[in-house]
Every structure is written in structure tokens, then in C-alpha cells.
């Protein structure tokens, strides 16, 4: 694994059991993603996109195979180690935003920094700064239900980026948004990728995301069907 490689998987296999019938979600994925890539993983429903994302982020364990993230072998970590690893290295963006509705925008963004033990003054400054970046300055005390879908996803992006992780994993981030808002957010993430050098990995069905992606990996029946760099 070179210093440029942030994600490396080796013979990644995941098998579920549905009514005692084995379901092969991943059938031995070997993949390397370099630092700073803007990668989209695509494929039909059931192809293994979300499972792949869950395993490379340490949310789920592979049945077989290994995963290295930022040079750390995460497939052998226990629950607590994985929690700490995710906290310090991975930012998540979900399809349904998944902000905590009882916390304000500021508190939602601040939460992960609290986990990291960042001092209060720095936390506040970072919240203000990141809200400025995502175009939500002045929304710090709003509650998520008071925001539109696009605004909530901006907060989710801010939350994912505020801890300055190595990788941002985004599971269908534009699926719940209208095309205009989706395009705006995609453009924002693209610019952040360019500006910060963070690695973005998307799971998506959105053609706009596929078009924007620097690299397009297609999964089919738990296997890599194609892996293309794009202009």
C-alpha cells in the first residue's frame, strides 16, 4: 500500500443469510482508491454498493477478506476501535441527511468534534467556518426540521467535513433532492474535493454524479463489472 492509497480491499467477501439461504453481497472485491479521488460506485439495486461502502467504512464486517483504510487494517478492529477510527478518519453523508432533529444545526456539526475532544472555542470557530463554506451562515441555531432538504444535506456535508477526515463516504447523497439542488450540492462537493484533497466515494444512481466522477466503478452481483477513469 503506497502513501497515495487510502482505501485498499483484498478479496472482500460478504455473505448474508436470508432464511438459511446464503446471499452473496460481495464476492471478492479487490480495489484500491487513491487519496483525493472523486469516485462513484454505481450499479443496479442489490449489486453490493451499500454493503461495499459499509465495509470500507467499518460499519460492517466482511465475511472474508481485508480492508485497509489510511494504512490501518480495519477489518480486524473491535467495535470501540472502529468507532474511534470512524470518528477521526471518515465523514458520512446519507441519502436522508440523517441529522439529529433535536439538536440545532450548530450542535449537529459540533457533535463529532465533541467526540474528538476538541476545545469549545475551536469547535465554535470550525462550525462557523464550515457553515460559511456550505452557504448556511446564520443558520447555526436552526433545528433541522426548519430547513429544506437541500439545506439539510448541506448541514450533513458540513458535519461530514468539519472533523477534517481523510475520506468522505456518501451514500446516494442527491437521491432525495431535486435535480437543481442536487447539482448545486454535487458541484459544492466537487469544489471541496479539489480544495481540500479529501477523498470522496459515492454510491449513486444519479447520472449527474456519474458524469462528475473522476472514476466510475460499476458493481454487478457483488463483483466489479467495470472500473474506468473519466475525463
Amino acid at each position: 500500500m503506497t502513501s497515495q492509497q487510502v482505501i485498499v480491499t483484498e478479496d472482500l467477501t460478504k455473505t448474508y443469510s436470508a432464511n438459511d439461504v446464503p446471499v452473496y453481497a460481495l464476492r471478492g472485491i479487490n480495489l484500491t482508491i487513491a487519496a483525493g479521488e472523486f469516485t462513484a460506485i454505481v450499479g443496479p439495486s442489490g449489486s453490493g454498493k451499500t454493503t461495499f461502502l459499509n465495509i470500507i467504512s467499518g460499519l460492517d464486517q466482511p465475511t472474508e477478506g481485508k480492508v485497509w483504510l489510511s494504512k490501518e487494517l480495519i477489518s480486524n478492529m473491535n467495535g470501540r476501535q472502529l468507532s474511534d477510527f470512524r470518528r477521526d478518519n471518515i465523514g458520512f453523508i446519507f441519502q436522508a441527511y440523517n441529522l439529529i432533529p433535536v439538536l440545532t444545526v450548530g450542535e449537529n456539526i459540533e457533535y463529532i468534534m465533541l467526540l474528538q475532544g476538541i476545545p469549545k472555542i475551536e469547535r465554535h470557530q470550525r462550525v462557523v467556518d464550515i457553515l460559511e463554506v456550505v452557504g448556511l451562515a446564520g443558520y447555526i441555531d436552526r433545528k433541522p426540521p426548519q430547513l429544506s432538504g437541500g439545506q439539510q444535506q448541506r448541514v450533513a456535508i458540513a458535519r461530514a467535513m468539519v472533523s477534517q477526515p481523510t475520506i468522505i463516504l456518501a451514500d446516494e447523497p442527491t437521491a432525495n433532492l431535486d435535480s437543481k439542488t442536487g447539482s448545486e450540492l454535487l458541484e459544492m462537493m466537487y469544489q471541496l474535493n479539489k480544495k481540500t484533497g479529501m477523498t470522496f466515494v459515492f454510491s449513486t444512481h444519479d447520472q449527474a454524479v456519474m458524469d462528475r466522477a473522476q472514476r466510475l466503478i460499476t458493481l454487478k452481483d457483488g463483483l466489479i463489472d467495470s472500473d474506468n477513469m473519466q475525463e
Partner: protein
Amino acid sequence: MWWILVKLAWRNLFRNTRRTFIAGTAIGIGLAALIFVDALWIGMEENMIKIATSSFLGGGQIHQEGFRKTQEIERTINQHHQVMSNLKQEEIVARFTPRTFAFGMITSPAHVIAAALVGVDPVTEKYLSHVDEMITEGTYFEGDNERNIVIGSKMAEVLEVEIGDRVVATVSQAKTGDLAQEMFRVSGIFHFHNHEMNRGMAFMRLGKSQQILGLKDDIHQIAIKFTDVKYGQNKLLPFWRKYSKYGNEAVSWTEILPELETIFEWTNISKVLLGFVFFIIVVFGIINTLFMSLYERMFEFGVLRAVGTRPSRMAQLILFEAGSLGVLSIGIGIILGIITTYICSKTGIDYTGIEVAGVTIQELIYPVMVIDQFIFYPFWVLVFTTITGLYPAWYAARMSPAKAMRRAG
């Protein structure tokens, strides 16, 4: 960090306000019921002790050893002048009165009845018993006629006598065992809320009773009224040992009327059982509420775990939610408890006429609020709600973030 979890827990509690208030009110009502029942029992205990000790018994008594068991007339208090002299010096003794006590027969022209004949000093007896207050006909030893006798209402009915009628008392004399008879005139008829006393007790002047029993100036019993009723309940009071000498025994009312104390002990057991039932309800209420809340927010828990919240922190969050529900329930319970107990402590609860362990309740029961009720029970509600949260907390801590999000999705 814990502060954000507390904040999160408290706010989560009010996401479904109706459910939270239903659960909180249910637990609160249970807590209020515990507070009220405790207050009611304190009021009832005080009432029953007051009735038991002030009607006739006193807070304690002194006899010769063995008298309570054998009731032998010869067993008079040893050195009773010295004992009474000492009692006058006791700060905790408000009043005391000497008595003789013998079983005999009372005969009227119509009938004969067995009776406990009690010789009393009418002046000091007034402070120890309520016989004078329970006179329904005639008077309580007015004047200085030594042949006056005060009998119970049922006895008067059986003997078919009225005020001014003559009756003859027959007793066995001390030492000789000879039978002695004396004629008395019924001067007063009393009525207690106690059938045994009304049928089987008769009071005569102390001097006359000593004479017919052949006791000279000896007495069988000294009944004592303490400055505080609690002294009578305290079996470890040094007073009892101090006066259990010269062959005499000093005993508290709890030994004379052990059935009443047994009732109080059972009361405490029933309070524990009531508390246990209540806490079982709390357990199910809390578990139900927390799990409903947990399943509703499965995705959120998945997200919290995904962004790096450790399993132990997830458990803390759930425990804080359980604790918050406990705090809310305690608030509701204390308010309801104060309102209901306060109202009843002013209006009283009517249990008059009900007999418990030989003591007939004669007055309204007034629940008594004490600070312990608002510390002890709420403390245990908080402890139980938090302990109850352990299972949902353990469940949340073990939850796989991927499964949580998959299940929610």
C-alpha cells in the same frame, strides 16, 4: 461530552410529548400513590397509638413481675411508694396513675356478670384514660361517695341497671382467698368504641378497691403517660430497665398490646410489597417507552454510531433518557402526591368504627406528610428507572450501525 448526551436525552424525551407524558404520568401516579399511602399509614398509626394508649392503657405500665401473666391479686407492685416518688422526678413522664386490678362478679337483682374491676384514683386517672370523657349517663366519680361504681354500657344492659341502682361486687381477697362482697351504687355508665370494655370493665375508687381486695395501700399497676408518645414505642428506652427492679417490670404499650405493633410491622411489609408492585410497573413502563423510542430512532442511533460514538456512549445516552424520564415522573409524582396528601390531611379520611387489632378507630384519619416521603420514594424511582434503562442501553450499545441503518431503512 456527557453534557451533550444529557441535552440530547432530555430533548429526545419530548420528541413524542404525548407518549412521554403518558409514561411519566403513569409512573408519577404510582409515586404519588406511594407517598399518599405512606402518609395515610403514618396518620393511621398515630391515631391508633393515640387511641390505644390514651383510652386506658397509657404509654407504659409498671407491675410486679408475673402479674400480667397470672393476674394474681397478691402480685402487687413492690416498693410502690418509692417507684411513684421516682416517677415524679422523670422528665419524660408527663403523668402517672396507680390502679388495682382484679377479676370478680357483679350482681344485680336481675343478673350476674364477670368483670374486670379496676380501682382508680379519679383525679390522676383523668390524665391517663378517657373514661371520664366516655360517660354517657351519670357522672364520673363526683363527690366523695366510696360506693360509687362506673360500669360499661353493655354491662348495664346485661345487668338491667340504671344510674342510682345498686349492684354487688364479689371478689377474692389477697392472701386469704376469702370472698368479699360489697354493695355499690351505679354512678356512671361509659361507652367506649370497644365491646370488651363496655361489657367487662367496671371502675371503683382506689381506696375502696384496696379495702375489699385486702391490699392495704398496695396497687397492681401504675399507668404512665409520657411527654411524647414515641417514648412508649421505644423498646430500648433506658426507662424500662430503670423501673424493672425490686421484682417489678416496666413495659411499653407495644408489649402490652403486641398485636397492634404486629399490625404496624405488617404495614411496613405491605408498603414494601406495594412498592415492589409499583416498581414492576415502572420497569415495564420504562422499558416499553425506551424501546419504542429506540426503534423509532434506529437510523439515528446508526448515524450516531457511524460518526464515531462509542458503544459505551450510546449506553450512556439511553441511561440518560431513562433518568430523564425518571426525573420527569418524579416531578409529576411529587406534585400529585403533595396535592392529594395535602387535601386529605386537611379534610381527613373517615375510618371511624373500624376495628384494627382490638383498637377501634374513633376519629378521622389525617395523612401525615413527612420530608422522607419526598426523598426516599423519588430516590428509588430514579434508581429503578435508571436500572431499568440498563437493558435498552445494553441493546443500543451492541447495535451494529450498519444493521441499525438497514433496519430503519
